[in-house]
């Protein structure tokens, strides 16, 4: 079977599986629709949470980002997993005890205010919608690269698939489909990594392979990588931080708090049977996430070494003429000069995978010094020795640009792995994007049908009516998401950071104070949410333009880029969260304390006994 057919078969089979599950798991009641009847086993819920959480960005882009950033890329790894510790001990068990369908409902009931609930709905909608655009474009990219159809067609197919199982199955259908999607995506991620780890180090566990020595040598893989990249003028792989240490610290903190505050993640803990299950389910979710997240740095480091090795013979890791990758032990030991003429790969000798990716425009070669060879190095280096060597060798600038997304997608091709592995990666990328899109759509439709329609506009709606409203809201959300995917607004690139910023600065502190501060009142909570949100948006918009419209940046107003202690706008959510806490406590001090029954409610939420099935009644 040729590659194209294999890919069609793999993707077709996985889609048939998802639809089969959707038919089996249709939702009949609002409880099944919003919370899968509260009866999902903690391990299965953990798997579904992992699939929900790991988006197209985690699957396709993260390893590439880490490869580019080196050590500093660890902020994504720690940030996106550390949030689960906060979730497990600060939020999930208490929200499960509270026993309602949505995050805004908790905020509305706890702070005895429909305005508070509406602010939460708005934060949720902005965070989820910005996040979903990335998923839809991810579906489009995966389809166009692997199935040869246009990216638009890919988005239509993706919409149709999500429509079938999300609209009819609700949370129940989504949960069981996500379990299947997790299995597809984790195999797709780990198998190529195992192949590559074996090829480079002989160790079949990628997590250990990254810390092992290159086959046939006593040089460790990271040591080789460090010396290769520093020779070529890049920062040392194992020590380069993301901006200042302070920025890396705050960025990591923002991602952790943002992760714990994202409504589509929190919602997953309403689907387990009781409080104890909510705690352990967070652990299981992190187990399944960590399988991919601990593999990612290996994929990143190894792919970076492979890429340099492919275009520069001095590295000592090169494509084997008989197929696959091979460590040239003598080459590693000789530590040849990467600037020698013969070291750079001749353009006409480049491997097939480079030709294929050149067509997509994600990989570009430009022969600046006209020698017919590929020179891949950092031409903006501050390393004077590297600069001098490049000039002496007659190099006229870096000639190869590689889009970060290629690292995972082309990884099996770089290592010349069999066709079925490439097909699996295609199915895995789609599974990652679809599962996250479905989870986000669920959070959006629940907020609209439950918190707006039932909570504000039509409190007396029947269960059947609400279920119908939920399905209609879901269908509309899918079309809006599809439309935004097809016509991505110019701001698409900056938006995922915004989603984390909003979740971190508005939702997380409000929920946490609702549980841990019995005396926190509605005035404090609302002032905190608004202050955190406004300050964060102000800082982000200063860098990226008002509502991301180009030309409306106002950097001089805040004293230049990253003016707040060198913190980048992506990292600012954590600062927003702190402002939220401070403002909330200050306002709380000067306004009157919450009514008696609310304080009792908080006491009740803190104790596991008496947990019952989630329901949707609005208690006021």
């Amino acid at each position, binding site marked *: 079977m040729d590659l194209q057919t294999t890919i069609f078969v793999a993707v077709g089979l996985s889609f048939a599986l998802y639809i089969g599950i959707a038919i089996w798991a249709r939702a009949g009641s609002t409880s099944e629709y919003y919370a899968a009847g509260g009866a999902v086993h903690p391990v299965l819920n953990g798997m579904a949470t992992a699939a929900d959480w790991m988006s197209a960005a985690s699957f396709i882009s993260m390893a590439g980002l880490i490869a580019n950033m080196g*050590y500093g890329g660890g902020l994504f790894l*720690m940030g996106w997993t550390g949030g689960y510790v906060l979730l*497990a001990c600060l939020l999930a068990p208490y929200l499960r005890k509270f026993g309602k369908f949505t995050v805004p409902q908790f905020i509305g009931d706890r702070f005895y205010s429909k305005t508070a609930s509406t602010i939460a709905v708005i934060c949720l909608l902005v965070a989820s919608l910005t996040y979903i655009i990335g998923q839809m474009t991810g579906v489009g990219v995966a389809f166009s690269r692997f199935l040869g159809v246009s990216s638009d067609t890919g988005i239509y197919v993706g919409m149709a698939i999500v429509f079938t199982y999300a609209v009819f199955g609700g949370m129940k259908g989504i949960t069981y489909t996500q379990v299947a999607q997790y299995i597809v995506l984790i195999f797709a991620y780990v198998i190529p990594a195992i192949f590559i780890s074996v090829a480079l180090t002989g160790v079949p566990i990628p997590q250990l392979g990254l810390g092992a020595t290159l086959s046939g040598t006593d040089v460790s893989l990271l040591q080789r990588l460090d010396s290769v990249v520093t020779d070529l003028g890049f920062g040392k792989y194992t020590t380069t931080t993301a901006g200042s240490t302070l920025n890396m610290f705050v960025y990591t903190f923002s991602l952790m708090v943002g992760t714990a505050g994202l409504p589509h993640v929190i919602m997953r803990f309403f689907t387990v049977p009781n409080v*104890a299950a909510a*705690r352990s389910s*967070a*652990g299981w979710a*992190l187990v399944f996430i960590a399988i991919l997240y601990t593999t990612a740095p290996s994929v990143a480091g190894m792919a970076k070494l492979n890429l340099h090795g492919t275009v520069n013979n001095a590295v000592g890791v090169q494509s084997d003429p008989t197929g696959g990758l091979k460590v040239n032990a003598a080459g590693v030991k000789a530590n040849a000069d990467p600037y020698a003429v013969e070291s750079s790969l001749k353009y006409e000798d480049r491997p097939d995978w480079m030709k294929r990716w050149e067509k997509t425009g994600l990989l570009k070669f430009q022969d600046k010094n006209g020698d017919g060879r590929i020179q891949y190095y950092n031409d903006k280096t501050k390393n004077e020795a590297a600069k001098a060597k490049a000039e002496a060798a007659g190099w006229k600038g870096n000639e190869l640009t590689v889009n970060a997304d290629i690292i995972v997608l082309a990884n099996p091709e770089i290592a010349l792995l069999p066709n079925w592995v490439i097909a699996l990666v295609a199915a895995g990328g789609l599974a990652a994007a679809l599962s996250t899109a479905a989870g986000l759509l669920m959070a959006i439709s629940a907020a609209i049908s439950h918190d707006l329609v039932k909570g504000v506009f039509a409190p007396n709606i029947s269960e059947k009516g609400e279920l119908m409203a939920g399905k209609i809201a879901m269908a509309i959300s899918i079309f809006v998401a599809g439309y935004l995917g097809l016509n991505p607004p110019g701001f698409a690139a900056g938006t995922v950071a915004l989603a984390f910023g909003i979740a971190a600065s508005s939702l997380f502190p409000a929920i946490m104070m609702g549980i841990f501060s019995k005396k926190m009142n509605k005035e404090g909570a609302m002032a905190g949410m608004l202050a955190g949100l406004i300050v964060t948006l102000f800082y982000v918009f200063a860098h990226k333009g008002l509502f991301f419209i180009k030309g409306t940046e106002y950097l001089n107003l805040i004293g230049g880029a990253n003016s707040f202690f060198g913190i980048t706008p992506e990292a600012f959510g954590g600062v927003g969260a702190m402002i939220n806490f401070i403002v909330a406590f200050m306002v709380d001090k000067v306004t009157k304390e919450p009514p008696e029954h609310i304080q009792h409610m908080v*006491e009740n939420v803190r104790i*596991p006994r008496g947990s019952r099935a989630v329901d949707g009644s609005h208690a006021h």
Partner: protein
Amino acid sequence: MQQYNHDVQGYWKATLGLITKVLAIWFLCSFGAGILFADQINSIHLGGYPLGFWFAHQGSMYIFVALIFWYAKKMGDIDKEFDVHED
């Protein structure tokens, strides 16, 4: 409103004590070993991994997983001790 005969305050104090321990470890392994002190401990090697780099790219995540299960187990014990566990 349901009334509890149990030592609700004692239960909450025990819970907060456990959460403090969990968050202290959470902070030390990621922000401490992975970021603030990464440079200092990089001179120690774990196989081919410099230790600070390892904490940022691997170690913190393993510790987070263990931490959540430990927390879940300990919380279960506290629930039973104060007789507020679910049936």
